[in-house]
């Protein structure tokens, strides 16, 4: 088990180094930070002096290792746009994004799994058909459109929920949370639905397809022949057998939700890293963009590791000893 985790962590290192190279390449080759900093009129001496000060006159590999070293210490440089350390900017904004992403995913999973199980058990029922048609909409409508439509309905027409921002937040040490105030929770509703909608429909369709498949299997027929209760069969035996692919998709989607909450955060002016990223792109704020890239890489690698560990927990057939250690 520990060997397995270590092996997976070792595999993650090259991935993160590759992401680091790309992030670093952005620094070096996208745009010209010196030009941006010095403005229109400058002499070659000015330029050389600034390049030396910033270490840009050193060989690429030296710069790369310095970049990596700093990144490992949480130092991603200073934002060109805001003039604050990138790490500070992220620390301020990450809680907002994580709270949004986790709420969206929890919401999606809580709705999608029962709905998918239902649609898998009674595929011909009226409700199942409605769910499937509805889910097609969820899969095919672009996120920003869902967000705008929700704002139109619930903020503009009905006036029930706020259309932007995070509401009042509470500071808990380094973390700011919107979970503890009413206005924070109200502000969370629409963005979470918007962000979770695609995930919800995807998981629901997957659970349904897997349930249909599993319910045809011999062990379900045998479970019926043993006289087990329908509840036990559907939720104990069938659902658990659908979990491996479902966990994979939930994991990948959670990564996707964290990484690409950009659109939702823009629509709802949600003060998270996605919005920060969009603002940085507009300003060619490369240190922020590079750090964002690394962050997304770390999130994906971490989630993949957790997903692999969950496979282990779900499916005993994967817990086979390695050759030589077997019985």
């Amino acid at each position, binding site marked *: 088990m520990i060997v397995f985790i270590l092996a997976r962590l070792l595999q993650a290192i090259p991935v993160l180094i590759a992401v680091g190279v790309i992030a670093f390449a952005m620094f070096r080759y996208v745009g010209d930070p010196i030009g941006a900093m010095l403005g229109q009129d400058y002499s070659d001496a000015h330029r050389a002096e600034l390049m030396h000060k910033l270490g840009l006159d050193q060989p690429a590999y030296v710069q790369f290792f310095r970049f990596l070293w700093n990144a490992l210490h949480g130092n991603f440089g200073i934002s060109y746009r805001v003039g604050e350390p990138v790490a500070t900017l992220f620390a301020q904004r990450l809680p907002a994004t994580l709270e949004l992403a986790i709420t969206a995913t929890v919401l999606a999973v809580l709705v999608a799994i029962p709905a998918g199980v239902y649609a898998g058990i009674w595929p011909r029922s009226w409700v199942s058909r409605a769910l499937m048609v509805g889910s097609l909409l969820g899969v095919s409508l672009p996120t920003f459109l869902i967000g705008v439509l929700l704002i139109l309905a619930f903020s503009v027409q009905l006036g029930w929920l706020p259309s932007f921002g995070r509401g009042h937040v509470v500071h808990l040490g380094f973390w700011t949370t919107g979970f503890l105030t009413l206005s924070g929770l109200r502000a969370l509703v629409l963005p979470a639905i918007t962000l979770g909608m695609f995930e919800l429909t995807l998981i629901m369709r997957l659970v349904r397809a897997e349930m249909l498949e599993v319910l045809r299997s011999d*062990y379900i027929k*045998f479970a019926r*022949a*043993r*006289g*087990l209760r329908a509840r036990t069969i559907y939720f104990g*035996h069938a659902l658990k*057998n659908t979990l491996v692919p479902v966990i994979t998709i939930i994991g990948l989607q959670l990564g996707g939700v964290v990484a690409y909450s950009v659109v939702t955060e823009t629509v709802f002016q949600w003060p998270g890293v996605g919005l920060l990223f969009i603002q940085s792109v507009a300003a060619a704020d490369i240190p922020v963009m590079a750090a964002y890239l690394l962050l997304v890489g770390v999130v994906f690698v971490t989630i993949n590791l957790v997903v692999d560990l969950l496979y282990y927990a779900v499916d*005993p*057939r994967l817990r086979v000893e390695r050759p030589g250690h077997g019985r």
Partner: protein
Amino acid sequence: MSAPLLGVADLTVEFPTRRGILRALDAVSFAIAPGEILGMVGESGAGKSLTGAAIIGLLAPPGRIAGGEVRLEGARIDHLPAEAMRRIRGRRIGAIFQDPLTTLNPLYTIGRQLTETIRTHLPMSAAEARTRAIRWLDEVGIPAAARRIDAYPHEFSGGQRQRVVIALALCAEPRLVIADEPTTALDVSIQAQIIALLKRLAREHGTAVLLITHDMGVIAETADRVAVMYAGRIAEIGPVAEVIRAPAHPYTEGLMASIPPLEHRLERLAQIEGAMPRLNAIPDGCAFHPRCPRAIDRCRGERPALTPAGATMAACLLAHA
């Protein structure tokens, strides 16, 4: 014969399809006495497995019982509400399926699958159910049952898994077990062990067995009586020895002739010409007449009823000696 444990009368199963209704079982009647082993043979598609599924109320939709009745210890069990039928399955009628590699849930230990079955049907604590599960594993011949109970299905061989399946079918002590091709998916060397086990358990617990198979050898070795199915109907039913020695139905005769004899080598194995009709093309009269070497004109128009013919019952106009 004592009062039947299971009585099946004129059981008819139909599948509505776009191109009309297919009659997959047509007025099938038989009875099983307590403790009796009734073999059921026939080609693929003859309706053997369907008979088993119809009895335990697990016909795959859109299949449905369109007529006839099924009685368990005198009480009708066809068209029972789903919940009442569920209580019968496992508790009063057990089932053993064909492929032990796929009938066990791969994600749960066999102990969990046994105890959940026991506790679904019998009022027992978890500890009592576990004790009972270990006893059953021991009884079906799983070595070191007390330790192996916490193993997962993939840690057992095919033969052992079928032993576990048998334990699962019998652990709530049903009076009847429907064994649908219990040895077909197993190695030949394992088949005999499983059949011997089934036979011993049936005797020791007084369990009646409906043994569905296409292997006449298994029937000959195990069953008290045999029902021969053809195109959704029973062609012949009677004591195994009589059916083998003096088959009254030409189809049974052909079936027996196609079993290779042990005493001498044959140049060529006898076979029945043609193939069993598809469900949408069952001929009028006797379903077997197009392939029957002795068919007469009457066979084309008149459907033979199952009537005594010597020591057995046969559905053949020519068999009434």
